[in-house]
């Protein structure tokens, strides 16, 4: 059956979202950079800024010199997450088969819905329209017979719109494009191998045999050859729900003082613990992600011998994990704590006791925790905190 795969791409998603809430940012050069340092690196750049010679990875002070009118925004992870959820909701109206690819990008499989939604390009046009109407976002939509070509098609347009590739002509469409459009051809592969071998366009790669390509690319050759021919059999996979929960925090100012970092970690543990207890689950594995100011991200994992859901034992384990994982001197800008391998707590009821009767007294720690939770339910998280979650003077 002929497949109809849509790829929705919203360029510079973080900036597009910011422009929704602040229309003043439209048609002006905008970039996203973390922290307030002059030397922070740009994460996301608007088309207007790009036209001024600014690109992702450039330092703020250099970007400002290239484009004095540049507006800088801090990263807003929460806004990004909300925006992505809204995008999925909108796309979900068309098909349940959707796969988020990256921030501001998702695949949608409309195969077999032609009688319901009309041809793929019509659905794409509708999707684009609704995106503008409901979310006030502008994006381009690529429509093709597979994920690979629909993605390339979405990136092909310079303006927002729909790019529909005739089924069967995928190879001819991507043939004249530079090899860098193919997934798996990053800067390193492109520069070191393909430029040296003078392979500049996709059709030149497609013209080689797999055996020849294998000489240069080894085991990656069959896949790249397939891609160069515009073939991609991979299905659109809706995200799998992993049984874990996590919390993250960004510090107000990047810091390398352990007391401040441990305070932030304690707040994360409190939040995670509270969510665990609400779900009635306990965790056996903590994963701590450290986001350094220089862009490096490190991860450490600790397996707990016993499952826990109370703040204090979780905190002890998290602190130990932190001291083990955080070996660099560079400041941290954010921390993320994930609890995995969730288990249901002991909920076995006493067989011979009448249900409403008082259960056996829980241990003191659990009682204390319950009391804390009740207070926090009523008066908010800030009403009562562990002392170590507060930053020192």
């Amino acid at each position, binding site marked *: 059956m002929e497949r109809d795969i849509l790829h929705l791409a919203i360029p510079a998603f973080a900036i597009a979202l910011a422009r929704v809430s602040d229309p003043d940012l439209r048609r002006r050069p905008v970039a996203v950079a973390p922290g307030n340092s002059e030397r922070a690196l740009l994460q996301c750049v608007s088309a207007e800024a790009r036209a001024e010679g600014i690109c992702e990875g450039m330092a703020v002070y250099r970007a400002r010199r290239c484009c004095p009118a540049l507006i800088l925004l801090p990263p807003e992870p929460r806004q990004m997450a909300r925006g992505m959820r809204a995008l999925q909701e909108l796309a979900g109206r068309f098909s349940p088969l959707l796969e988020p690819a990256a921030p501001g990008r998702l695949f949608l499989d409309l195969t077999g819905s032609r009688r319901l939604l009309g041809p793929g390009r019509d659905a794409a046009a509708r999707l684009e329209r609704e995106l503008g109407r409901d979310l006030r976002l502008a994006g381009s939509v690529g429509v093709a017979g597979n994920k690979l070509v629909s993605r390339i098609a979405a990136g092909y347009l310079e303006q927002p719109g729909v790019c529909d590739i005739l089924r069967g002509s995928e190879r001819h469409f991507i043939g004249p494009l530079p090899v860098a459009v193919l997934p798996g051809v990053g800067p390193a592969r492109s520069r070191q191998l393909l430029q040296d071998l003078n392979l500049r366009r996709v059709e030149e790669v497609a013209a080689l045999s797999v055996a020849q390509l294998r000489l240069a690319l080894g085991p990656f050759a069959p896949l790249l050859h397939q891609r160069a021919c515009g073939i991609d059999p991979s299905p659109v996979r809706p995200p799998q729900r992993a049984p874990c929960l996590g919390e993250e925090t960004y510090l107000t100012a990047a810091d390398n003082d352990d007391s401040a970092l441990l305070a932030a970690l304690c707040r994360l543990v409190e939040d995670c613990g509270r969510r665990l207890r609400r779900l009635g689950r306990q965790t056996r594995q903590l994963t701590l992600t450290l986001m350094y100011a220089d862009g490096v991200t490190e991860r450490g994992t600790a397996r707990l011998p016993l499952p826990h859901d109370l703040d204090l034992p979780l905190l002890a384990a998290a602190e130990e994990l932190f001291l083990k994982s955080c070996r660099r001197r560079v*400041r941290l800008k954010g921390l993320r704590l994930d609890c995995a391998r969730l288990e249901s707590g002991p909920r076995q009821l006493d067989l011979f006791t009448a249900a409403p009767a008082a259960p056996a007294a829980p241990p003191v720690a659990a009682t204390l925790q319950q009391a804390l939770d009740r207070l926090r339910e009523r008066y908010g998280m800030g009403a009562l905190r562990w002392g170590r979650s507060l930053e020192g003077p």
Partner: protein
Amino acid sequence: MTDFVALHVHSSFSPGWGVHGVEELCAAARAMGLRRLALTDRNGLYGIPRFLEAARAAGLAPIIGAEALAGEHRAVLLARDAEGYGNLCRLLSELHCRSDFDLPTALARYRRGLFIITDHAAVLAPLRRPSPEGLFVELSPGHGMHRALALARQLRLPPVATSRATLLTEQDLDLHRVLRAVALNTKLSRLKPGETATDVDILQSPEKLIHHFPHCPEAMENAARIAGQCRTDWDFSATIFPAFRGLAEEEAFAVLQRRADDGARRRYGRIDATVAARLHKELAIIRDKGFAHYFLVVEEIARQSPRTCGRGSAAASLVAYCLGITHVDPIRHNLFFERFLNPGRVDPPDIDIDFPWDERDAVLDFALARYGAHRAAMVANQVGFKGRAALREVAKVFGLPEAEIRAVTERISGYWKADQTAGAVRTHPLFRGEALNEDWQRVLHLAQRLRGQLRHLSLHCGGLVVVPDELRRYVPVEVSAKGLPVIQWEKEQAEAAGLVKIDILGNRSLAVIRDALEAVRKNTGRDIDYASWQPLDDAATRKLLRAGETMGCFYIESPATRQLLKRMFDDEEATAGADLFEHLIMASSIIRPAANTFIREFVARMRGQSWNCLHPLLDEVLAETYGIAIYQEQITQVAMALADFSAFEGDQLRKILSKKHKEKKLADYRQMFLAGGKAKEIPEDTLAEVWAQILSFAGYSFCKPHSASYALVSCKSAWLKANYPAEFMAAVIANGGGYYAPFAYLSEARRLGLRVLPPDINASDAPYTGQGHNLRVGLMQIQGLGRQALDLLLRTRREGGPFVDFRDFLRRVRMASADVMLLIKAGCFDVLEGRERRPTLLWQLLADRHDCDGGGLLFAEPVAVPDAPAYDNETILRQERECLGMLLSCHPLLLHRRELARLKPVPANQLRQWAGRYVTMVGWWVTGKTVQDKDGRPMEFVSFEDTTALFDVTFFPRAYERFCRQLTRHRPYLLKGKVEEEFGVATLNVEWVGFVA
């Protein structure tokens, strides 16, 4: 109570621990009323000679000690007498050199003559058993005093009070903690309590300290008792000479005399009366002073290479010339032996020898093998913090990201001190428009307090110390990262302690001369005898030197020196009679320290301007240098003539000027100079002017013999450049060049009319090679090509002959694919296969490697190599830049032909014709030097080149301030400004900078 003595004190010579310099500590101790002070730096005697000097200057009696810290054990050790000092040195040497060092065991062996003070039971208990003598238990506030007191009672040992002084005030703790974090490579919040000093580890006055010992007053008294028994009249002034082959003094002198006579006959053919008299005079002083051993040791080392350059004042010695240590004839060039050795001189002579840079390690190995590690070791460099390192390290402790740190530090000169850096960041135009945030303010505040704090030792570039008996008696010895033994003192302190240093230095130009001479011999059969070579007899060489076309020539190739030579000899008539060699000596001396005004005056006088000395008394002293003090020894002579200094005092003044720590003594000498002059009724303003001239040379001037030695090497380089430019330029680049990058030398070669040939798989050697009019790029230029691969290639080619084609190469040389790829992209196979086949060769290589690695299946057909299209021109140039690090096939400015035709810039070789006018020029950056004008504002001299010539450009402070942030080395510049001409040399004063698109 004033008898109390602080017995445990750390100075900034405690690596990664101490905060204050010995001078500050001594001053503070004196202000507290202490009369004695011990210095106990951690695991070393790194600052003892300086401490002795500082303590005496402050009126304190110095006690020598150290805190030994090894594993779990710790003890403060104080030298009671000379034997104790020797044992302390030996113990500390073992601590650094032996991996199985154990403090209690070592103390049992070396405890004689030492006081041992510690609160570690594991150290005291085993020592207590044989004898309690010299053992004390350390009681310090804040360090478990009750436990220590209990230990004292249990072992029945006397307690002694210390304050473990690291800080002078509580505010020093911040800096100390930063130092610890730097040393331990951690951050402040991870420092454990035992890893830093506490806020009570302060140098305390006896009155304050006694409040901590109400229960144990005898601890304070014991401190005074120990100090009373320690020697304080240390005298390190005796010179310790090496001994030559175990000869007695008389035997050594006889050998020296014989060798000097032989050498004189070799050098002069026969010994005439002048030579004989001079030899006799020198030998007499050498004999009186007992320096014969020293000369023989140096001669033996110098003989390890046929091409050396004995530098420093030793070049004034005829004995050194006859022994082949130096190569300038001191009689012919009127060099005074007294500058090197005189009867009044008390400190040891100093002979430095340059060897070709690639032979230096072998010479050092020879010397260390000859005398053994127990008698010889290298001199150390004590590495502290300079401006850039201080800022970088403190910023790292505060967790600032690398990119952010680099963005600040790359604008800081490596020569600035820490406190200069802090000032520069606030005022320097490179930092204009950037408000430093609070974090950086704090980093700067701490970094500017990092000055002399010792971090670690490194090897001095060539200083070797040899003693007649056991080195570890005199100074603790460590092992360097290279595995060489190294003493704990740098050269000033080693000299202050009487150790004689022989400098064995590497010199690239000697290797250049060696390689060029060898190439000339190979190419033309002409063999030049290095010892009798007289380069200035050659007219072409003289012309080249007078024209300042000396790029590539040793020591006189910098833009400033080339300009100076041009200015000096531009007027051929006026300077025709000038002795070229003498003037080269002056040029290479004056260029180093002097301010521009002196140089201008010097050139004007040389070209005939009338002049008078500042005072008639100076006429005789300064006659040969046009009334301007140029040489170091002239400082001595000026002081003698004007202020009646004795030869010894004058020499001391000269030495102080060239030393690092001079502020205080210099003031004394200034007073002495002014008073001496006044007594001779010399006007005060003349004296002040002369003193200012003397000071302008501080620390940088050369003595004439040294400059003469250098000038001789310069002349030899110039001879080679004038007569065999291809061989010479090839040798210059092959030896890593000097002042310029290889690209600049290649441009110079083109200007000399040489053809620069690309690397070739059959024709190129590893180094650059030159013959006739051709300069062939060596395979060493290919960036990233492994040494092993290169050796393999050359061996295969030598054994099996040239390669026929690429297949032949692949068949014969089993090299890593990455290396072959580099050879292809560098164009090494272009001659065999043609440039257009480069991508096809890469495919061939891949196919070949695939087959060899067993990638092909047994019955699979071999993969057909695709016929790839040729690279476009842009790709070829990119590959050239990537593989060779520069553009070789053409000058980068030629890539902008169209734009240049539109701009119509003035060609550099016509610059002089445009003097006094405003012009537009196009240039490629060659080299630059940032300096400060007389008001301390930064400015820069930059050399550019276009396709016709080099030209020099001045960014005066205003232009520098405006454009310094744009200066880069990778783009063609568009420069607008006014052409200035002075003494026949035209330079461009820039007023506007842009870039060619």
